């Protein structure tokens, strides 16, 4: 699949997921990627095609999204709840993107798992430029999709 189509699909998935269930929207693309105080989740998908999806989000962005999703004040949310929401966000984004890929089979997603951000830089999918980043009302959201060669 051409890279531009994949970027468009990812951008559409981010908008759709954030608007419908988190009641926010990306404010624009960002040349910078989420780093530092952030939460990262990954999941793999199996079928044809198969690959890996990663998401990294600034801590402040994660709290904002968790607040919207759960309908609770940010201050009342635990770190665990915020991390669970990030995992569910990764699940929905990956599912949305992967469902757009041409496939005659259903594709199975693994359970999302949190990744220590320090180790992510070493074993992330491909080069840093595969990350696609979005500016949120608070912080940044970065996503990366890696398809394994058929």
């Amino acid at each position, binding site marked *: 699949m051409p890279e531009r189509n994949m970027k468009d699909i990812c951008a559409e998935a981010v908008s759709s997921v954030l608007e*419908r*269930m988190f009641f926010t929207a990306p404010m624009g693309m960002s040349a910078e990627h989420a780093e530092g105080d952030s939460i990262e989740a990954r999941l793999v998908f199996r079928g044809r095609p198969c690959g890996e999806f990663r998401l990294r989000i600034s801590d402040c962005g994660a709290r904002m999204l968790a607040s919207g999703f*759960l309908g609770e004040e940010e201050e009342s949310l635990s770190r665990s709840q915020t991390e669970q*929401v990030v995992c569910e966000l990764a*699940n929905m984004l*990956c*599912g949305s993107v992967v*469902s757009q890929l041409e496939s005659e*089979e259903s594709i199975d997603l693994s*359970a999302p798992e949190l990744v220590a951000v320090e180790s992510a830089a070493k074993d992330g999918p491909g080069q840093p430029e595969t990350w696609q980043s979005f500016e949120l009302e608070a912080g940044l959201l970065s996503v990366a999709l890696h398809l394994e060669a058929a």
Partner: protein
Amino acid sequence: MNLMVVDDSPVMRAFIQKVIALTGLETGTIYEAENGEEALRLLRESWVDLVLTDVNMPRMNGEELLRQLESDDLLRAIPVLVVSTDSTDVRVQRLLALGARGYITKPFLPETLRDEVEKALGMSDA
């Protein structure tokens, strides 16, 4: 009425519970299960009027849960709504053929799921 929410994500289960509250339904117990295996065990112990289930879950996924319910003389009467990220035709058709009453793709607007719950329970005119 008793309902069951089956999803390996605790926050997704919480979201769905908020949607159920939108219906204004007089709910008895809303059971929660992390996977199909736990759901099946609970369903054999307690009557439930509607099951909402994810598909991708560890141990037993939603598709296998549906298969198990369909093969049970008593449990096959329970309506099941599938709530999943997978919107591929092949999956949707397979689950509807297995007896799912409805299929809602994530992400969804809360009122979309609310309307499907009401329809499945015969609460709406739709």
